[in-house]
């Protein structure tokens, strides 16, 4: 691997009260790769993501992004640095329309402030709104959700909401995309659509993608590399083929062996 390290996790430990959620986890994410984190439920995958986005502060260890220490950076700043994410349990702004959800994610790219907001016509808010609206419309047409542009997201079906959430993450125009189970609860067709979008994004924008997913077949198909967590400990790291044959992983997934191989 000669690609530069983008995001680096070093010896991260995290505990809630007495329980260890993460224990001494280290791995690197390289520029432009799709890295999947897998592991059984409660393995600490989402906690890992939460640490990377500043939502949890690790007890020990450090996380760097492009060489900058971000372990203690507040979440809103990390988003500004270029890390976007989606959520395991959809966390859309239910009261806003699809359009506004994605516009809201453009937040960090807006320049105008509170007073310009109030004045709207004077001070450039209107101009900026129109400019960003153009970007958002591109995302909307890329994700093929034009028809629900002005629908309130709270009322949308699950699959579409996942897609809006992806759109929202895209709108940040980040350099790293963290996707937390983007395909859970979808039917096959929706999953394929979603996989297509992820690969498209990866290819078109050379986006670094970090993915948590339970569907092993899918993970094996699209991931460049895989990190396996179990009870908060990294038990394996490698290409899909290496992981498939890793005895540790097979032990962790005892009884689910066939699922990995499928």
């Amino acid at each position, binding site marked *: 691997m000669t690609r530069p390290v983008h995001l680096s996790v070093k010896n991260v430990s995290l505990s809630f009260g007495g329980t260890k959620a993460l224990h001494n986890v280290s791995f690197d994410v390289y520029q432009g790769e799709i890295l999947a984190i897998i592991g059984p439920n409660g393995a600490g995958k989402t906690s890992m993501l939460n640490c990377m*986005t*500043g*939502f949890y502060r690790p007890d020990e260890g450090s996380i760097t992004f492009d060489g900058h220490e971000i372990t203690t950076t*507040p*979440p*809103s*700043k*990390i*988003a*500004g640095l270029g890390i*976007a*994410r989606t*959520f395991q349990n959809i*966390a*859309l*702004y*239910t*009261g*806003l*329309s699809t359009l*506004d959800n994605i*516009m*809201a*994610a*453009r*937040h*960090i790219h*807006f320049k*105008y402030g*509170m007073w*310009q*907001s*109030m*004045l*709207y016509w004077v001070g450039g*808010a*209107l101009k900026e*709104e*129109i400019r960003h*609206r*153009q970007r958002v419309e591109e995302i909307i047409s890329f994700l093929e959700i034009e028809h629900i542009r*002005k*629908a*309130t997201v709270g*009322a949308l079906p699950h699959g579409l909401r996942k897609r809006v959430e992806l759109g*929202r*993450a895209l709108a*940040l125009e980040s350099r790293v995309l963290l996707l937390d189970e983007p395909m859970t609860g979808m039917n096959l067709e929706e999953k394929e659509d979603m996989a297509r979008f992820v690969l498209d994004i990866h290819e078109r924008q050379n986006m670094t993608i970090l993915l948590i997913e339970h569907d092993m077949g899918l993970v094996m198909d699209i991931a460049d590399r895989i990190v396996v967590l179990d009870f908060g400990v990294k038990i394996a790291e490698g290409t899909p083929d290496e992981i498939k044959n890793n005895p540790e992983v097979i032990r962790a997934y005892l009884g689910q062996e066939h699922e990995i191989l499928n």
Partner: protein
Amino acid sequence: MAVLRPSGDFDVSYRQDMALIRYPWHWVLILATILVAATAPLWGNAYVVTTINQIAYTVIAVQGLNILTGYTGQISLGQAAFMLVGGYASALLATYWGAPIWLSLPLAALITGLVGLIFGLPSLRVKGFYLAMATLAAQFIIPWLTRHTFKDYLGGSDGQISVPMPTLGPIVFDSAEKFLYLSLVALLITTVIAFNISRTRLGRAFVAIRDNDLAAELLGVNLLGYKLRAFFIAALFAGIAGALRAHSERSIGTELGYNLNESILFLGMLIIGGLGTNLGPFLGGVTVIILDDVALQFGQFVAALFPAYSSNVLTSFRPIFFGLVLMLFLIFEPRGLAYRWTLIKAAWRLRPFSR
């Protein structure tokens, strides 16, 4: 909100799509409302004019609360106390600096906004009921401070000071009829501002915080920063409302209200009108003020039937009415009258297929 639009009705530019007033009948409705309100001295009696004044500044206060509570989801039980700050600020500016109304009103609003920021600070660490309590603290601490500090300026023991009549160049707003135009212009400005906030990044960040504060933070919204902005703007509006009220009552102080009951009333107006909608404060403010009159009339009617219980009846009908209406709205129409209005609009557009 799902927008149901007639087929063939297209926007051809983003600007047009983002416009607030999109059909001729919007203009007609808005201009008609303004016209009706502005000509009140011609068609209505003094009570109507004064009541429109009262509605105007009440709506402004509720608009501010709407930004904080409706959009940002931060419950505030202290809006009335912030009005007190605005009233005092404008009064002192006008009394000691002779500031004209175009200067004293915005300055008072700014000062109130800054006070709002201070009481918004706990929102850094607490939310929900805890934050409601912090604002409740404001509702007690601010009036206490006006009575116990700077007694020479704030009136101290009397609990009130006089407020000069507002001036604008040669114009002195010395009657309710003249004051009406001041209130209406202020209301128009705050309404435009409220609409602008709701359709720009500021409003979206507020709603993001309300709907999912954690996601908002992870997607780049600085929670404290934006909560504080919401507190600031809510207090800003309260400042305008308080200043208007102080000038129209020509006095300001804790003897004249600005208490917890009023803060609760504002929240009730917001719920009845429609939380997180720009129409809500208007519908809620007007409805509650009219409802108050209805309760009074009905109370007097019932009191006449049972003269032996007249004082019980007269005193109890207002709280019963307001409490009951609030509860019924929460159960049967939690999204308020504004939502009902959008349903009616949609039904009208889709007629005859609306059923």
